[in-house]
């Protein structure tokens, strides 16, 4: 038997205390296989040991929530017996090592989470963060990540309809790749993972197991050092064709009564899937490891249990339906094998060559997983001052911003994604503040968006997280959708450091406060920690993925202009420039506090916009939220998109710079026809409204300041991404 040494424990990312806990649970020493199982089950990735305590505080309930966090994905009710299943998940570390495969398998994994629950994925989003473009690897990484995401989703035939892509030096050595998938299911056809049934067979289906990504789950929870790329961990390779077959086969089988419970094999593969199914159902499992289909010779039980080969599923089958099960999988050319049986012992027994290789108490292992209340302390932030404080005109500043990588037109990026397959994409990328996807064969549609401003979060994680939620809520309102629920992906550094733990706690608190106040529950999510290299952490990046509902998809808003339209701003403009993109891009300065956020006003303004889109659709031309870059950027985006022009008057007595570039929250640009009643409706709703100009000619004209032609605007705006992908 392998001797358990300090070194072995640290290779398994287990602390001495955790090992002592294992000894107490087992009342004996574990063997290597058992130690490996503990290590993945108790990894940050599977056990959420540093964040569990705080995640429990999030609001997860609403009358329309069918299933909150805890299952493979969250589920909400959207009426007419339809439900939406969605979740976001990170694949940050694998994507930094191998961007193409890392991102592709991230997409594959999140889609399996969705169709495991019986839902057909209908839309994917992805939220990306890269280092500075001048960093030598950035171009390689973004090209790999984007093709990986595209190739996988395109092949499976699920439209990739939106997301974000943001560059900042804090991601130079730790990029973020967060993938979100949304699926549709009938309310009475949802599948869960809790094992049920008496000695029912356990079926393995999908790809053969290889040595892919062994220790991936522990890798995903461990900080990088400079050797990481030398270590060349076995990365997982994605196979979207097999995923497509698995998707179709599972959905076909789900139309029969064969499947009792089902769980995809994600991080920690066979181990976490079997333990989770058993523990949720209070069951035991006898697993015959010799039955597992293998891709390579000579694999040990340890390797088999820890492998992260993609495109695999585990399910409990009603024995009466064994024949139909194998028929359907055969039809789709997939291998399905009975690998074990359920029992009531609550023990996990793994057999090989008729010998017990592992005998672990399932509930003790799962429910006694470590939970930490780690120390946290606010650290004063080293302020970044600009090097060059010289006077730069508003026009020059604007040009710098609109040409910057963070504002460049993303068409060359998202055109690599099939955003139209399934023929229900009503509004794809760049047409509005959220993507809008019709529920097939109905008048309903859903709106989808993902948001987070890490610069705000770094300065004040509580406010930053609140703003991320609010921005997400705003983007849904801006297309006319009722915001329903969110999924989140919490990306942070090393939680063992006080200041990082502070960021984590504060961000979760911020999400909680904003979600409670907006009645916008959290139904699923994911935590990615240890996003650090050589002790340098990323900015706190709690990405919020939001889902909203539109009753009648014909009543929606886009970011359109129309000749002679009247332009208004909803919400008060104070001119908050601290931490703005203006300060960042023009002066490389990140100082001060994020803009103030009044959640009551946010709600009022959002409700007004939604109501206006619904009731006054005939007089409405376009809506666009105002966020990073301020009013001028929102207007420029509209001008570029529609190839028309606007004529804007900065209101008297306002500081022009602040008014144009300020990032005050809860605001929208609204464009309406000449005959309209928007001012009256706004006043009745108690919402601040300001007329700022009209749609005229071609180009962006700020009266008494400057004018830029469309041609110049479009060229400046598209250069970065065009070069990036050429």
């Amino acid at each position, binding site marked *: 038997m392998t001797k358990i040494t300090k070194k072995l424990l640290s290779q398994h990312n287990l602390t001495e205390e955790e090992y002592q806990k294992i000894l107490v649970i087992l009342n004996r020493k574990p063997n290597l296989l058992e130690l490996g199982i503990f290590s993945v089950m108790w990894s940050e990735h599977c056990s959420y040991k540093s964040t569990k305590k705080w995640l429990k505080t999030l609001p997860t309930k609403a009358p329309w929530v069918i299933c909150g966090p805890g299952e493979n994905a969250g589920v909400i009710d959207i009426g007419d017996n339809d439900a939406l299943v969605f979740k976001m998940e990170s694949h940050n570390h694998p994507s930094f090592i191998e961007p193409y495969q890392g991102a592709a398998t991230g997409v594959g994994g999140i889609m399996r989470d969705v169709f495991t629950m019986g839902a057909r994925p209908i839309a994917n989003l992805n939220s990306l963060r890269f280092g500075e473009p001048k960093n030598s690897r950035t171009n390689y990484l973004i090209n790999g990540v984007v093709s990986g995401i595209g190739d996988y989703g395109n092949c499976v035939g699920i439209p990739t309809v939106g997301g974000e892509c943001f560059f900042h030096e804090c991601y130079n050595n730790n990029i973020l790749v967060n993938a979100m998938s949304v699926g549709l299911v009938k309310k009475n056809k949802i599948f869960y993972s809790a094992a049920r049934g008496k000695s029912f067979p356990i079926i393995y289906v999908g790809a053969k197991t290889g040595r892919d990504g062994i220790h991936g789950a522990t890798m995903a929870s461990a900080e990088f050092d400079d050797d990481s790329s030398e270590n060349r961990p076995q990365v997982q390779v994605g196979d979207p064709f097999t995923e*497509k077959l698995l998707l179709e086969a599972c959905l076909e089988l789900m139309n029969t009564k064969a499947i009792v419970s089902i769980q995809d094999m994600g991080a920690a593969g066979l181990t976490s899937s079997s333990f989770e199914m058993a523990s949720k159902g209070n069951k035991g499992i006898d697993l015959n490891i010799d039955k597992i289909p293998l891709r390579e010779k000579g694999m040990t039980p340890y390797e088999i249990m820890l492998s992260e080969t993609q495109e695999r599923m585990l399910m409990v089958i009603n024995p009466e339906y064994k024949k139909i099960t194998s028929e359907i999988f055969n039809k789709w050319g997939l291998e399905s094998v009975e690998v074990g049986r359920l029992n009531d012992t609550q023990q996990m027994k793994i057999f090989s060559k008729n010998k017990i290789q592992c005998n672990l108490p399932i509930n003790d292992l799962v429910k006694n997983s470590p939970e930490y209340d780690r120390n946290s302390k606010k650290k004063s932030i080293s302020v970044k001052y600009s090097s060059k404080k010289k006077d730069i005109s508003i026009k020059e500043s604007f040009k710098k911003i609109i040409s910057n990588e963070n504002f460049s037109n993303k068409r060359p990026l998202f055109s690599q994604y099939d955003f139209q397959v399934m*023929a229900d994409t009503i509004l794809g990328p760049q047409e509005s503040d959220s993507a809008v996807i019709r529920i097939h064969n109905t008048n309903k549609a859903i709106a989808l968006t993902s948001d987070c401003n890490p610069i705000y979060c770094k300065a004040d994680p509580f406010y930053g997280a609140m703003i991320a939620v609010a921005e997400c809520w705003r983007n849904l309102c801006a297309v006319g959708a009722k915001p329903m629920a969110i999924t989140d992906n919490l990306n942070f550094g090393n939680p063992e450091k006080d200041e990082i733990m502070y960021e984590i706690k504060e961000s979760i608190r911020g999400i909680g406060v904003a979600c409670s106040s907006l009645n916008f529950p959290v139904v699923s999510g994911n935590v990615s920690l240890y996003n650090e290299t050589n002790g340098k952490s990323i900015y706190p990046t709690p990405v919020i993925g939001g889902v909203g509902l539109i009753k009648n998809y014909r009543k929606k808003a886009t970011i359109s202009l129309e000749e002679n339209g009247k332009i208004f701003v909803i919400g008060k403009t104070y001119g908050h420039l601290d931490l703005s993109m203006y300060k960042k891009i023009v002066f490389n300065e990140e100082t001060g506090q994020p803009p103030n956020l009044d959640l009551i006003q946010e709600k009022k303004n959002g409700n007004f916009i939604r109501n206006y889109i619904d009731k006054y659709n005939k007089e409405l031309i376009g809506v666009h939220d105002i966020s990073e870059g301020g009013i001028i950027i929102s207007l420029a985006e509209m001008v570029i998109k529609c190839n028309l022009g606007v004529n804007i008057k900065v209101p008297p007595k306002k500081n022009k710079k602040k008014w144009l570039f300020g990032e005050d929250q809860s605001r929208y640009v609204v464009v309406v026809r000449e005959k309209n009643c928007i001012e009256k409706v706004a006043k009745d709703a108690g919402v601040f409204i300001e007329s700022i100009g009209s749609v005229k000619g071609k180009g962006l004209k700020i009266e008494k300041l400057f004018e830029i032609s469309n041609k110049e605007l479009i060229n400046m705006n598209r250069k970065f991404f065009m070069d990036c992908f050429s």
Partner: protein
Amino acid sequence: MISIVVFPGSNCDRDLKVAIEKTLKKKVDMVWHKTANIKKSDMIFIPGGFSFGDHLRAGILATKSPAMREVERLSKKGVPIIGICNGFQILTECNLLPGILIKNRNPKFLCKSVNLKVDNNSIFTSSFKNNQIIKLPIAHSQGNYFADKKVLNSLEDNNQVIFRYCSAKGEINSNFNPNGSMNNIAGIINSSKNVLGLMPHPERAIDLTIQDDGILFFKSLKMYL
């Protein structure tokens, strides 16, 4: 009966079925690729997607499916066959259409709406005006039509090029060629004029709130049915 052949990895089959039902009010038979006997079919569609994962060369592995023997047999009897996107790739790989679709000039996948000039002199496009300019979505990374000079000349001489990429005003040149196709070819028919292959997706453009130029495409088929 209208048939759609479904391969493992097809993913525009449902969209196509919906489009046919909606625009032609006809029943659709989904034919699994292993079918060795297509009984009665007035028209056969080969849908878009990634049949067999698009491995090796897009379309090649699907040509080995039994249903494709049937498609070949029925095509000789004059049954209209329409391959869209991956379907077009399959039809060239099994020689029902000449040429081949290779990687795009910029090999990345490309999803966008493009302008097309339509030749209405085919059973598949008779509802269009001749040289009408329409807009349809494309979504592919292997849509770059290639054929040798002789084949190309005979396609042109026999008016077998049915769809061509162009500008909104109808200019046909390399600036309005999204993938590098020879002669801006987006869709062709065979010499007996009953087999059509096209890269754009008319089935994604049958909705007034999204795009609707695909409706005319399906309406053309109505006259034939």
